[in-house]
């Protein structure tokens, strides 16, 4: 049983997704429970995996018992288990929020949700480059349908752009994979790492091209400048739980960058060593600047949160781009914080927008909203988290990143850009918050009917529990900051010593029947 635990995060959502497809649409309560049970089981599995790999052990699972590098392997190391746990936590909160009715305005929401998790978990676990492509496609196909869930003109328009740009990205991925296979004759990531390091000098240029093509694909998924233009419209127009789940989807790009460019194109990769070092840091800083300009220029709350996702990706990749153990440690601390905070903000902005009736989430004076104290407090906490003010996890994350930047050559650039963008984020959030909560009288308020129906205590609990849970996760990151940074520090060391990973995968003993 424990031998097979590595594959559970992939199998569980797939089985649940198929099961949900078979259930008739009118049994919505049953569908919700099946979905929630599946996600809960995924959380438990992720927790078990996290505790087994935290000793530094790398679990390798050979699918179909084909010995690596010939078969496809699933590899659970510290980074993969970390990502799985974050995904499961965000998914539970997002799924809980859908019980407010998001899932009833279109068919098969729960199936698609599980398939999206199938793709996400698979992408984190796989140890094969082509398999990574396949899981990318699975998560993208589910995300296309989730994005369009509920329908509407703006969703369709944003969805069309999202689908087309990602199809082009998939094509580039295949070109890169094909080039690597044609040159090196393998697609297993551990084996690729060995082969890239030993590649003859006259193949170096082609390997560089393939590596940089892959970087373009991952940068597109992560929404790095200049490939970020699909994100704001897509995230701002989709339904709140889907947007919350998508907060983890951009992190898949960051995960892939971290995985591929430490393992295959890391420091030991011969001619292709540290392939993207010169590219990643400047582009990440540029992403931060562009993202914060978007935050300042946003006219709607959800659009602003979408730009905040870009800012968080910029910060995250700045930390990864420093290419040091301290930088990666900080990035892996900042990653769950930014995911939880962005997901909470998407859910919260939906609650605010619904109470403002026709004003929706525009930054204009509107009616006094119901439960404005409660929502105001939640907004305040989320804003502090995202802007990175003490004492919450955003501050610790940014502090770790700045601390890691101290010995770096581009120290002034990194600290300057991060501190200035944080200031602008703070200004934008303060302006937005005061517009929504302190200036509620509209000049023509007689035309606007405030959300009249009072909400029952139960409805309010369903609505705000997910937000509160996500914020509690962030507070947990502060309370257990020592444990968490200890874990991320060992993860960073594991990533920067890919020999252990390569050894575990290639020396794996296949069980003879």
């Amino acid at each position, binding site marked *: 049983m424990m031998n097979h635990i590595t594959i559970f995060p992939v199998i569980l959502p797939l089985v649940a997704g198929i099961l949900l497809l078979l259930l008739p649409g009118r049994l919505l309560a049953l569908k919700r429970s099946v979905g929630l049970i599946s996600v809960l089981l995924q959380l438990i599995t992720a927790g078990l995996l996290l505790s087994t790999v935290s000793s530094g052990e790398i679990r390798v699972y050979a699918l179909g018992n084909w010995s690596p590098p010939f078969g496809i392997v699933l590899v659970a190391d510290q980074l993969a288990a970390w990502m799985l746990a974050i995904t499961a936590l965000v998914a539970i909160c997002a799924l809980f929020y859908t019980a407010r009715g998001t899932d009833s305005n279109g068919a098969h929401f729960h199936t698609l949700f599980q398939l999206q998790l199938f793709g996400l978990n698979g992408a984190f676990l796989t140890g094969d480059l082509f398999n990574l492509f396949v899981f990318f496609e699975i998560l993208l*196909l589910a995300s296309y349908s989730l994005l369009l869930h509920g329908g509407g003109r703006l969703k369709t*328009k944003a969805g069309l752009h999202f689908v*087309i740009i990602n*199809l082009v990205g*998939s094509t580039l991925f295949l070109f890169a994979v*094909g080039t690597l*296979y*044609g040159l090196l004759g393998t697609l297993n990531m551990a084996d690729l790492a060995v082969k890239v390091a030993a590649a003859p000098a006259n193949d170096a240029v082609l390997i560089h091209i393939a590596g940089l093509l892959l970087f373009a694909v991952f940068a597109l998924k992560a929404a790095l400048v200049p490939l970020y233009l699909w994100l704001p419209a897509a995230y701002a127009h989709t339904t709140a739980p889907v947007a919350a789940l998508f907060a983890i989807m951009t992190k898949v790009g960051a995960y892939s960058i971290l995985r591929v460019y430490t393992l295959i194109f890391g420091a030991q990769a011969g001619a292709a060593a540290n392939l993207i070092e010169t590219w990643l840091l400047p582009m990440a800083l540029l992403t931060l600047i562009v993202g914060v300009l978007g935050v300042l220029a946003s006219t709607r709350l959800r659009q602003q949160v979408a730009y905040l996702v870009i800012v968080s990706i910029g910060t995250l990749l700045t930390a990864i781009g420093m290419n040091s153990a301290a930088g990666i440690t900080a990035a892996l601390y900042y990653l769950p914080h930014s995911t939880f905070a962005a997901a909470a903000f998407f859910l919260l902005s939906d609650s605010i927008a619904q109470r403002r009736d026709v004003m929706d989430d525009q930054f204009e004076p509107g009616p006094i909203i119901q439960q404005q104290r409660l929502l105001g407090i939640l907004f305040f906490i989320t804003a502090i988290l995202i802007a990175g003010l003490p004492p919450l996890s955003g501050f610790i994350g940014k502090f770790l990143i700045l601390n890691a930047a101290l010995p770096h050559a581009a120290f002034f650039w990194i600290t300057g850009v991060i501190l200035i963008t944080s200031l602008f984020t703070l200004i934008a959030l303060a302006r937005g918050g005061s517009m929504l909560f302190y200036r509620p009288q509209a000049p023509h308020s007689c035309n606007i009917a405030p959300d009249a129906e009072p909400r029952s205590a139960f409805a309010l609990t369903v609505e705000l529990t997910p937000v509160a849970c996500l914020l509690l996760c962030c507070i947990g990151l502060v309370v257990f900051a020592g444990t968490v940074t200890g874990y991320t520090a060992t993860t960073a060391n594991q990533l920067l010593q890919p020999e252990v990973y390569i050894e575990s995968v290639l020396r794996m003993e296949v069980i003879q029947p």
Partner: protein
Amino acid sequence: MELLISLIIGVLTASGVYLSLRGRTFPVVLGLTFLSYAVNLFLLVMGRLTIGNPPIITDDPTQYADPLPQALVLTAIVISFGMTAFVIVLALKAFSEMGNDQVDGKHKP
């Protein structure tokens, strides 16, 4: 032979890129299809162009057709086929909802 295949891939990719940069959804869908044709062909020839070799390793291990690119291409074809079907339906939906077939939804006279 190599030259011919690379020319075909090049022409397909170039037309794919050109068409996918057009302003209307139908040429964009065609462009994406061309791009996926190009990449499928590219993946296939990554197993090198050989004629008359058995598909699996025989007693003479230096001469065989690499089976892996064929498996990769099969997967890639299935995925790109599904994606093309999806994007066509989406383009039709966009056409009916926005009233024109411009990618950015704005009608240009």
